[in-house]
């Protein structure tokens, strides 16, 4: 199976994306440490930068920038590899996309550092930043669209060359991811193109709730995109690493389709305690949010079935013996396995908190921050870390040494323990009312606020461990790019299990149909509220700066 010369053709592009991503992780992680220590009450932020500027950059660097660049590096490599190379033109597109991203990111960063855009990742109107902040975001979105286009064109050309064949599953995942992120970013693009003329003063007032609703159609879908990127590795890479095979090709394709078509309306659950929407509408959206859980539940079964089969093949006996025969000592497995386990908790918490009344208990408390540090911070990020150990040496023409491998085990431990500290304490302190996105405060020694302090110490402790983990990870990435011994590291991609290899249905391939279905479902969720918000709009707001 191994064709020792087969490599990713656009390896320099991918390495550039990864290198930039990990520099941003280092900076964003450091900002996270500062916040964690501040929330713990042990660090006052001084020196011309305030807590909310730190938080704005931490959010944008980690949930938008690091993840986007990682996605581009990883899924472009996968598409490249399974489709047998990218053309020169497509590779050029990748470089242009990277340039657009860097330009946009630079604008955004300068604006935040200049104190012109302390509006957090959500930039809720009518709080208004300098218009160039939003223009910077447009360039980041252009990167995403161009990156998607490169994958779509490559997949389309492959299909034309290989009539009647199914698009390789890894490329199928990539197409699904970029379709979903394109849907998501269409909403934020609409929002930003509405905000820009308003911040320049060309229009006087803005429909606040409209911008908020457009934002969440983007904001939540975005994190689900990162989740889908991680899921692609769970299906495509993990079985290869442990010597197993794919549970079912058609099931994997169905999961991708479901995640893509069901996802966007889920964003509405961020508005469960908002005014302006009826109780009935909010209840209908409970259905739409919970529907997103279905493909994840399918995934949970398929992955554990794959793990069990492989574990038994490796000699595991009895009911649970297979579990211990899995290669826990292999960092490429350990990372992803811990990521998958964390998603059981993250997903369950998500299902709970999307139920309207339960949402009201935790809305905008640190519970929510705990939730997305489990889902994105562990399930997604630890998966990303797990890919580094073979993907980067594959791209750089090097091999993973024993020493770096063992360092990786330590890194994984630091990350896991750090996240346990941080997410458990955030979840609990959120349940007793501590607000998110708030600098350390006791509200003048208020007794209720003082109850939060002991738990917040653990947030700070988690932050220290996590930053140590970030530093270690960046060193590992640097080593694998520039210092590790030269050699060939194979690309990890699974083969299908023979006994389940019944024919994958043709309908899975019809992306035109799935895009239409997605548009219909998005319309079901958003048409009524958006038409109502526009047709029955309250008086608007002028730009306001409170930072």
């Amino acid at each position, binding site marked *: 199976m191994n064709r020792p010369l087969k490599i990713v053709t656009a390896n320099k592009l991918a390495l550039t994306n990864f290198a930039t991503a990990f520099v941003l992780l280092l900076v964003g992680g450091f900002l996270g440490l500062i916040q964690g220590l501040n929330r713990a009450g042990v660090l006052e932020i001084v020196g011309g930068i305030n807590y909310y500027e730190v938080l704005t950059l931490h959010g944008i660097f980690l949930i938008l920038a690091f993840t986007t660049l990682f996605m581009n590096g990883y899924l472009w490599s996968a598409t490249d590899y399974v489709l047998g190379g990218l053309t020169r033109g497509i590779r050029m597109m990748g470089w242009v996309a990277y340039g657009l991203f860097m330009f946009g990111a630079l604008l955004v960063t300068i604006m935040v550092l200049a104190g012109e855009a302390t509006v957090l990742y959500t930039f809720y109107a009518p709080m208004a930043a300098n218009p160039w902040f939003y223009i910077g975001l447009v360039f980041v979105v252009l990167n995403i669209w161009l990156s998607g286009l490169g994958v779509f064109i490559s997949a389309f050309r492959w299909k034309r060359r290989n009539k009647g064949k199914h698009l390789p599953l890894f490329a199928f995942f990539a197409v699904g991811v970029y379709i979903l992120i394109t849907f998501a970013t269409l909403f934020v693009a609409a929002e930003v193109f509405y905000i820009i003329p308003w911040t320049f003063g060309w229009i006087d007032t803005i429909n606040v709730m409209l911008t*908020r609703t457009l934002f969440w159609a983007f904001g939540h879908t975005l994190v689900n995109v990162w989740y889908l990127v991680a899921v692609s590795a769970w299906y495509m890479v993990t079985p290869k690493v442990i010597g197993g095979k794919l549970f079912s090709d058609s099931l994997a394709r169905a999961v991708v389709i479901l995640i893509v078509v069901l996802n966007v309306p889920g964003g509405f659950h961020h508005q469960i305690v908002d005014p*302006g929407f009826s109780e009935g509408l909010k*209840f209908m959206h409970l259905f739409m949010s919970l529907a997103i859980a279905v493909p994840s539940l399918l995934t949970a079964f398929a992955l554990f079935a794959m793990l069990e089969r492989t574990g038994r093949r490796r000699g595991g006996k009895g009911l649970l013996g297979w579990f211990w025969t899995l290669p826990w000592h292999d960092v490429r497995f350990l990372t992803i396995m811990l990521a998958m386990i964390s998603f059981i908790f993250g997903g369950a918490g998500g299902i709970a908190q999307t139920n309207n009344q339960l949402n009201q208990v935790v809305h905008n*408390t640190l519970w929510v921050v705990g939730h997305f540090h489990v889902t994105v911070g562990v399930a997604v990020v630890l998966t990303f870390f797990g890919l580094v150990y073979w993907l980067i040496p594959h791209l750089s023409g090097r091999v993973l040494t024993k020493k770096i491998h063992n360092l990786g085990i330590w890194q994984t431990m630091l990350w896991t323990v750090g996240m346990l500290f941080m997410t458990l304490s955030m979840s609990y302190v959120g349940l007793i009312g501590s607000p998110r996105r708030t600098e350390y405060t006791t509200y003048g020694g208020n007794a209720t606020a003082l109850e939060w302090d002991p738990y917040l110490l653990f947030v700070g402790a988690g932050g220290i461990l996590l930053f140590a983990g970030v530093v270690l990870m960046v060193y590992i990435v640097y080593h694998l790019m520039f210092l590790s011994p030269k050699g060939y590291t194979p690309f990890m991609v699974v083969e299908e299990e023979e006994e389940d290899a019944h024919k994958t249905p043709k309908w899975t391939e019809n992306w035109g149909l799935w895009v239409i279905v997605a548009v219909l479902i998005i319309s079901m969720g958003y048409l009524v509220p958006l038409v109502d918000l526009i047709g029955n709009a309250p008086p608007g*707001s002028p730009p306001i700066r409170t930072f």
Partner: protein
Amino acid sequence: MKMNRMEEIWMIIAIGIIIIAMGITGYQAFALGMAPPSHQEHIDPQTVEEHPEFSEPGVYETGENQYEVIMTLQAFQFEPGEITVPEGAEVTFRMATKDVVHGVNVPHTNLNTMVVPGYIQEITQTFHEAGEYIMVCNEYCGVGHQTMSATITVEE
């Protein structure tokens, strides 16, 4: 698409749990009146102070142990900032913001809502236990967000 038998059972259980969750949430929302705050009244955010109701924020008694709190929010204060009601009082908060989006949370209760420019938000809470409660802004509203709070004293 063929499915594994075990997988079918798993999916039936899983989807069953989701449907039960929806059933409970729907029952609580519509039969028990516990739905999240969803008031749909408009207000011009630029003239909140001239609004007949919000020009005079304060605590108003509306019935037997029933109160209405007319509250305005702005960076970085609640008005009124100190509220006193008797134990067992059913308090309806009517809230409007004069500037940006704010959030309102009273820890130890389920009072938690967004206040968005252009809308009056309404939420009712019965304070069964006497004591000092704090109301905090839980949506980032600017550089002094961490100072934005009010107190609710529930007297025996």
